[in-house]
């Protein structure tokens, strides 16, 4: 039985993210989650491979004392896919940023989700290009003023949750960098999910986009502007859990419990395992000021995984085919003898 602690996942490399960067907290959560995952699934450390693309967050593999692959910009998802298909026994974690996964690597990202390959993608979303020093990303807010948009962007951002669910993703979770405990929970759930898991981590970039998520992460407002979804629990939020989400027949609505005829009874109960992508999409889409931003595991459903499909097909064809060696292959079909 694997008996690992967070220290086992810490490499001897100095962590070189800026002080105050949100990535530190996500790394810490991962190093704390993996021992629990190892315990639950009986995984030894050598079974983990951490893959990344290019960007600040993509330095993460160097800080994990596991097998690691720091690939090229945007392509982490393709490298992860190859690793998992080649050796499904390995458990693959991927770190990538919003520019990495959703701009240059957008194609690989949606196709990994479509295929439902069993990898765990941590999407560090700080809404900015940090490593190149402050250009807008595909998740930067409309009008964001950055080095390449000195007058504000004139393009709409992606909501990663909508993108994942739009591609019929089987697992999507969202959290804030500072929510260490919740992040451990999310990562553990992602590890237990058989299929492509996307965890969007809303991270802060202290240098180029400080306060990126302040409007929801500030301790003063967090309880009112976010809602943590947990399976089997009522969708309530607010400092005193006084608000709830109800479905009014057309759309989600925020209500004050005990007001306007709404009781706790009317508040929705979260079920990430229900194949109810319409409701899950609505939850993932929620944003202020009308709604709280949904955190936690929003969707976690079972479906066929690509890596299992490939492996099973190979097994199946092996069992049925008459060709099992290259010599047999070379002599298959039309041949003729010369004496």
């Amino acid at each position: 039985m694997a008996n690992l602690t967070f220290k086992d996942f810490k490499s001897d490399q100095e962590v070189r993210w800026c002080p105050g960067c949100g990535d530190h907290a996500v790394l810490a959560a991962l190093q704390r989650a993996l021992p629990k995952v190892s315990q639950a699934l009986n995984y030894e450390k050598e079974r983990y491979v951490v893959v990344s693309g290019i960007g600040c967050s993509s330095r993460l593999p160097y800080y994990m004392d596991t097998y690691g692959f720091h690939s090229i910009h945007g392509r982490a998802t393709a490298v992860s896919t190859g690793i998992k298909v080649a050796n499904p026994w390995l458990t693959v974690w991927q770190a990538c940023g919003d520019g990495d996964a959703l701009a240059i690597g957008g194609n690989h990202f949606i196709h990994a989700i479509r295929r439902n390959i069993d990898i765990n993608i941590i999407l560090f979303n700080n809404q900015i290009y940090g490593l190149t020093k402050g250009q807008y990303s595909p998740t930067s807010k409309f009008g964001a003023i950055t080095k390449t948009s000195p007058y504000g962007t004139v393009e709409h951002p992606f909501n990663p949750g909508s993108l994942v669910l739009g591609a019929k993703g089987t697992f999507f979770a969202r959290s804030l960098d500072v929510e260490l405990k919740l992040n451990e929970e999310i990562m553990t759930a992602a590890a237990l999910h058989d299929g492509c898991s996307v965890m969007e981590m809303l991270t802060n970039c202290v240098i180029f986009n400080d306060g990126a998520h302040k409007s929801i992460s500030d301790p003063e407002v967090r309880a009112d502007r976010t809602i943590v979804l947990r399976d089997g629990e009522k969708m309530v939020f607010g400092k005193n859990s006084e608000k709830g989400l109800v479905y009014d027949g057309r759309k989600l609505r925020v209500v004050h419990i005990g007001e306007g005829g709404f009781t706790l009874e009317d508040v929705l109960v979260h079920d990430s395992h229900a194949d109810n992508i319409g409701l899950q999409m609505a939850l993932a889409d929620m944003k202020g000021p009308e709604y709280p931003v949904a955190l936690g595991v929003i969707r976690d459903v079972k479906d066929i995984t690509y890596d299992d499909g490939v492996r099973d097909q190979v097994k199946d064809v092996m069992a049925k085919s008459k060709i099992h060696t290259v010599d047999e292959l070379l002599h298959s079909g039309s041949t003729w003898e010369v004496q």
Partner: protein
Amino acid sequence: MQHKVIDLKDVVIRFAGDSGDGMQLTGSLFADMSAIYGNGLATFPDFPAEIRAPHGTVSGVSGFQVHIGSDKVGTPGDFCDLLVAMNPAALKSNAKWCKPTAMILVDEDAFDEKGMARAGFTTENPFTELHVEDRALIVAPITTLTQESLKESGLDPKTVLKCKNMFTLGMACYIYSRPLEYIYQYLERKFAKKHPELIEPNKKVLNDGFNYAANIQAIPNTYTVAPSKNKKPGTYRNITGNQATAWGLLAASEKSGLPLFCGSYPITPATAILEELAIHKSLGAKTLQAEDEIAGICTAIGASYAGNLAVTTTSGPGLSLKSEALGLAVMAELPLVVVDVQRGGPSTGLPTKTEQSDLDQALYGRNGECPMPVIAAHSPSHCFDAAFTAAKIALEHMTPVMLLSEGFLGNGSEPWLIPSMADYPEIKPPFVNGVLAEGEKFKPFERDPQTLVRRWAIPGQKGFEHRVGGLEKNHAGVLSTDPANHEMMVRERAEKVARVASQLPPLEIIHGPAAGKLLVVGWGGTFGHLLNAVEEVGDGVSFAHFDFINPLPANTAKVFEAFDKILVCELNSGQFVGYLRATLPQFNYVQYNKVQGQPFLVSELVDAIKKEL
């Protein structure tokens, strides 16, 4: 008129028709049948990029040339003895390939006013307009005869018309005394499951074509091409270059004990390799049809890291897209085979036409100092050995290897004496031995002092956890921007590739003396044409052919030294000769180039060689 049966040493037949007329199938059937009959053979499919180009137009003509011989034939032949033209456009675009003594067989029904106009004929007689009226013309109403033949078959008119090619094939079989049994068997196999109702009608049309040719007076003589007597005994099969490439990779997978993983994106003319590998899951091959070329190579790189024999297959434009990832494989020092089936470029270029113009891209097309071994296949069946060798070098030297094939090789076919896998060497990757001393840390980029090859620790092994990636590292695998370390690593990576030369077979003189005035040099798919050309020129010229381009065989300078002049022939503007001039500048090079999307003609090579003598 006395009917004569004339025995020929070799014969070239060109089937040409609309791209929907089934000429590729007709040609390959004729080829396969001749292979089984025991002839030497080479084929050359020459088709448009459009699946169904405008009907009846010159741009939509699809051709398939077959060269059969009573001995080994090296090329698909320059000019043909029989041209089959299913419509006026096919005649128009192919008449120039007819020998002065050629026969031309046309479907008279297609030569109506509309057909003639579509092909752009301006007079009433297409033969005089093309100056081929003095050839032996066989003008047969093939469409009408096919309809007549299948009157009672119950097939719908569209299906009936699709059988025209079988009538033509039957006629060709009569002219060249081919037995029909092989084609019967093919039809039975092809239609047995889905369309058994098509077996008998196709057989009937084939037979009727054969008998029609026997009955008309227009064919004075028939011919035989005897089976080859000089063939080495053994079991033979016909094989295309793309199929041989796929099988060579499967052979390397077996010999290395590593499962094959192919991540690829469909692209002409390389797709058939991916398709072929997708069939052979029974040998453990995994294929991933990726979302793009970049994902093709990146999934392969991931699979390589995870311990598979990883492959990506492509053609020129796809190779351009893979460049950055190739650099990653060089940097991470992971084994990978990249197959580039070259086509006419640049850009989309001539997708279905052959060229050797990706050599510079293969050698240099990456950022930074980024060398990798480059090897080339020289015939359809040689693709098997070339792919096997590419994989062996990749796995044993921990490097990506570029295997250059060509559209001409990939689509072309030839008979192949089936080898035995027992005669192929084992492939032994430099795996870590699984034991680390107490307190020892695995250093992923520590090198073997002789070969400079690093060790391969496949994930899943306790204690060997390490990181690879695109950033420069030191031997311990730790990130390093130290200037001296970078220069050392650049040199070591280059030297590692250069030292592959010690494992390569020496360059051999294939024809002519080992010293003299002129050495003809080629690489890749021009081998057959060059060999035929030097043989035709005869004495006074020598010939050497390169399968290994980077590194060059270790004795290359020694071979070159013995000649006054080196004539480098290639299907581009001079990429290999440029490389030789840069690598071995002390020799006197001249060049002969062709960039038309077509293979060399033996006759033009003969002229070029004679000019230099």
